């Protein structure tokens, strides 16, 4: 079939643009084992690095003896803080305005902290030699509880002694980092004082870890002849890493090339800058040879990028018929030994102030106190925009707690407090402008889809049966309506280390009508090579199959802040559409010239410009592309390419309604997810197949977090969950099937109306699972029990409620 006989719909379908469940182009490589991950990189003369790590959570480092390690054949170097100090690299700046030891400088502050870095000819020799480095420690008192830490005389950060001013304002105690306040404290306290009803609860979101299947790693390769450093690594933000490496190493930025190859999952773990990167770069500069460092799983869980660890004290006020009048939250945030949280500079607690959720709460106040303890630093956004999952969990628990206090149905309580459709754009009491939403429609659709009333009737019968001794299983119905804030963000209020959080896309159309696009982001499994080509296909009318996507090479891609916080689609996706529109604007002029009419006399028609009123006279984008390279068009430069750096005017606010139905065995604490319904509204849907896949994966990560996954410490600061034996990752066996659904409320400010979806299922999933557990025990008196809800803890709930006879 040729161009003239195809309908516009058929031509649009051939493009595989927006809305197409196009199969992923990445998969041809991945399914054959032909991905190229950092540990697959092998360079001539490549050495391996391995860390000596502290077994203690808090100790002085009295001495480090390298002799035995250096004597092992094949060992090239052993680096300590003393070796890095002359270069000024024994400490490094963190993303949160603090500084962090690269290698232990006199003391260690968490178990697993990096003490020495061994460089050897292969990984076996490096591991052997690391065992032989003799470190003499003197143990110090350990603080693993943030509330204790704020009272203790023990000074964790002696390097900050006497500093009463931190990066985010005054420090109240030697183990205190910052206080961050939002909203109106006095007004909120007044509302609480006058309210008909106030529900109060401590909601703890435990410490956990993103644990992507591929750990963090890098290969640093310094070419002493050209003076150029190439750094391959598992970087979610390769351009920012280049700038950071330049700033801390003193190497000129044009002499640094950062490459993120294929990344085996990120989930926030791969945003930060880690000691392994710095040591590998130094080792390559010193030896003149490439140096590879890849952490093992235990190192990954113990030292890079924990998430959460927020103690959220909440008060929620309402009228006696359930209208919420105020919300108060004080959070104690355990940041570990260094404040290395990955948040935009002005947001030391991320976007925790989205904690009013989906509700029209007129008055609110939030304060967050950051605290040092003897735990690993990190504080990354594990599959969420900065601290949004903590905020969503907090409000969705507080709603349930309020429902208990009011003796109301929690679905109805939500419904009467939702921000109404006609209130958007909505100004929240804690400072955000929600761009769009239609919560009531989504909520009603979700309740109907699961037959909510039928479920409640079944639950009532189950309770009767339980009381009559006919069953030992309870039924929990976990409700959640979440609102996210993603797509950081407007440069005017979001930066990381001073770098504005815009993003970018460059598109080049080739003469024969195919194209290459390069972005400032980097896929870690999201399928950017597939979906961003779809945006371009719809904008400029070339088939997605003819568009190559490249990301992750700072020498070729335009500068961008990377992929995390669901920002790729809201920010880089917008840049992609805008760059494509620049190309289309030039294509319009070329088409008009070729058709010998005025620019305004042609109109866009799927994949071509045609003369208005004479659709049989047209030039396809393919023809226009060729003309751009072979015609001398008066007033136009040859070629057809464009670049866009997009600074979004606002963030986007995806939302969703999730319902979990769970069976719980009172005697064993075992749980079984009978049904999980996930309705997401991410605005315009680019690739429904990929959206559904993101939801499946995100809800499964939420299942893990809510039902068993944690980074647990004993009182000595030992990590108790340092391997996959103890750290819960669900298998196919524990994981249920999910039902996905959607509504579409496009973002009014995004060029194609898209909002981002990768993190919604984790943000909404955690409260849905947790609320199901709580809901099952609500009739027996449970108000609040901390996650993770593993079998033992669920058994303890039942036991504590006297249900074991």
């Amino acid at each position, binding site marked *: 079939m040729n161009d003239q006989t195809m309908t516009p719909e058929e031509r649009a379908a051939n493009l595989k643009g927006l809305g197409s469940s196009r199969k992923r182009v990445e998969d041809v490589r991945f*399914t054959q084992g032909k991905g190229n991950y950092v540990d697959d990189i092998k360079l001539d003369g490549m050495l391996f690095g391995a860390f000596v790590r502290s077994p203690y959570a808090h100790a002085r480092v009295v001495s480090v003896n390298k002799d035995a390690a250096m004597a092992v054949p094949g060992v090239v170097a052993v680096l300590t803080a003393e070796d890095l100090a002359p270069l000024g690299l024994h400490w490094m700046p963190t993303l949160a305005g603090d500084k962090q030891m690269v290698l232990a400088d006199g003391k260690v502050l968490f178990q697993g902290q990096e003490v020495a870095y061994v460089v050897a000819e292969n990984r076996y020799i490096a591991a052997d030699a690391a065992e032989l480095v003799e470190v003499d420690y003197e143990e110090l008192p350990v603080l693993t509880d943030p509330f204790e830490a704020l009272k203790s005389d023990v000074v964790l950060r002696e390097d900050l002694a006497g500093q009463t001013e931190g990066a985010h304002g005054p420090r109240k105690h030697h183990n205190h980092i910052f206080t961050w306040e939002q909203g109106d404290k006095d007004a909120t306290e007044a509302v609480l004082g006058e309210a008909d009803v106030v529900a109060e609860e401590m909601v703890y979101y435990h410490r956990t870890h993103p644990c992507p299947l591929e750990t963090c790693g890098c290969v640093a390769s310094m070419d002493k002849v050209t003076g150029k450093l190439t750094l391959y690594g598992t970087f979610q933000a390769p351009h920012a890493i280049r700038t950071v490496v330049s700033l801390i190493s003193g190497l000129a930025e044009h002499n640094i090339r950062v490459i993120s190859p294929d990344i085996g999952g990120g989930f926030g773990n791969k945003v930060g800058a880690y000691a392994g990167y710095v040591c590998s770069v130094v080792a390559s500069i010193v030896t003149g040879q490439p140096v590879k460092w890849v952490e093992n799983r235990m190192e990954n869980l113990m030292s890079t990028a924990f998430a959460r660890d927020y103690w959220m004290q909440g008060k929620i006020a309402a009228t006696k018929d359930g209208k919420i009048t105020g919300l108060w939250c004080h959070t104690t945030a355990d940041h570990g030994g260094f404040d290395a949280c990955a948040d935009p500079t002005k947001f030391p607690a991320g976007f925790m102030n989205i904690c009013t959720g989906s509700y029209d709460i007129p008055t609110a106040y939030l304060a967050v106190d950051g605290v040092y303890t003897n735990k690993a630093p990190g504080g990354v956004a594990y599959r969420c925009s900065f601290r949004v999952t903590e905020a969503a969990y907090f409000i969705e628990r507080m709603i349930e707690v309020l429902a208990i206090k009011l003796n109301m149905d929690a679905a109805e309580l939500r419904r009467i407090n939702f921000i109404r459709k006609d209130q958007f754009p909505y100004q929240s009491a804690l400072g955000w402008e929600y761009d769009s939403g239609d919560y009531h429609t989504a909520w009603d659709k979700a309740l109907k889809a699961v037959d909510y009333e039928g479920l409640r009737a079944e639950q009532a019968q189950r309770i009767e049966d339980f009381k009559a001794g006919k069953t030992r299983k309870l039924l929990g119905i976990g409700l959640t309506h979440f609102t996210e804030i993603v797509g950081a963000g407007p440069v005017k209020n979001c930066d990381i280390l001073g770098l504005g959080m815009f993003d970018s896309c460059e598109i080049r159309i080739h003469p024969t009508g195919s194209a290459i696009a390069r972005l400032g982001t980097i896929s870690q499994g999201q399928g950017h090579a597939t979906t961003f080509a779809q945006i371009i296909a719809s904008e400029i009318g070339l088939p997605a199959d003819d568009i190559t996507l490249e990301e992750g090479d700072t020498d070729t891609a335009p500068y961008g802040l990377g992929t995390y916080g669901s920002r790729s689609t809201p920010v880089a996706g917008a840049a992609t559409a805008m760059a494509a529109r620049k190309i289309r604007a030039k294509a319009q002029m070329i088409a008009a010239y070729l058709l010998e009419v005025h620019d305004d006399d042609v109109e866009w028609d799927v994949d071509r410009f045609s003369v208005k009123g004479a659709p049989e006279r047209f030039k396809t984008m393919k023809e226009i592309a060729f003309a751009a390279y072979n015609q001398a068009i008066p007033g136009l430069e040859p070629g057809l390419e464009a670049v866009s750096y997009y600074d979004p005017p606002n963030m986007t606010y995806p939302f969703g309604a999730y319902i979990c139905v769970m069976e719980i065995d009172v005697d064993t604490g075992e749980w079984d997810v009978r049904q999980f319904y996930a309705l997401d509204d991410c605005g315009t849907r680019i690739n429904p*197949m990929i959206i*559904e896949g993101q939801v*499946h994966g995100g809800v499964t990560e939420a299942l893990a977090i809510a039902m068993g996954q944690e980074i647990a410490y004993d009182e000595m600061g030992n990590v108790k969950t340092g391997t996959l034996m103890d750290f819960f990752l669900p298998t196919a066996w524990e994981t249920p099937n999910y039902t996905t659904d959607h509504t579409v409320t496009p973002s009014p400010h995004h060029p194609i109306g898209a909002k981002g979806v990768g993190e919604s299922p984790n943000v909404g999933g955690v409260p849905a699972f947790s609320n199901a557990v709580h809901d099952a025990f609500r009739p027996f008196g449970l108000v609040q029990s901390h996650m993770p809800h593993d079998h033992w803890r669920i058994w303890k709930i039942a036991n504590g409620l006297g249900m074991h006879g």
Partner: protein
Amino acid sequence: MSKMHVKLTVNGKEVEGLAEPRTLLIHFLREDLKITGPHIGCETSHCGACTVDIDGKSVKSCTTFVAQVNGADVTTVEGLTNDDGSLGVLQEMFREHHGLQCGFCTPGMITRAHRLLQENPNPTEEEIRFGMAGNLCRCTGYQNIVKAISASADMLNAQKEAAE
């Protein structure tokens, strides 16, 4: 450390080399033979990213010495591609049903699924979930992996029937 001579068949080709007695099979495959499909995710046998097929059994190559498989017949995901270079049935079905995202677990997943379907050509969903429980995925939530394996079973059975 002194090295020993090892000889095995990998993806239908005889290979040999020198390895320390402690050299793990995954390192021998990835670093000596440059077969980088199998990945290292945990080094404790939990995640299954390193899964290979050895003499008709699924084995985690991160906790197997190459010395243990001297003389064995080893298949990795690279060996599951059709002779003409096109995707094998499982590879194609994983793509068709969006059974992968970051791709890191995929080689182990597909290699394990290959053996599962030899062991049980008509698995139920429950049998697939149980049979794949030694392979972790952090991206997909397994739903589409189960679908891909089930569709592969149907396709392989149809191919077998057509050949008979």
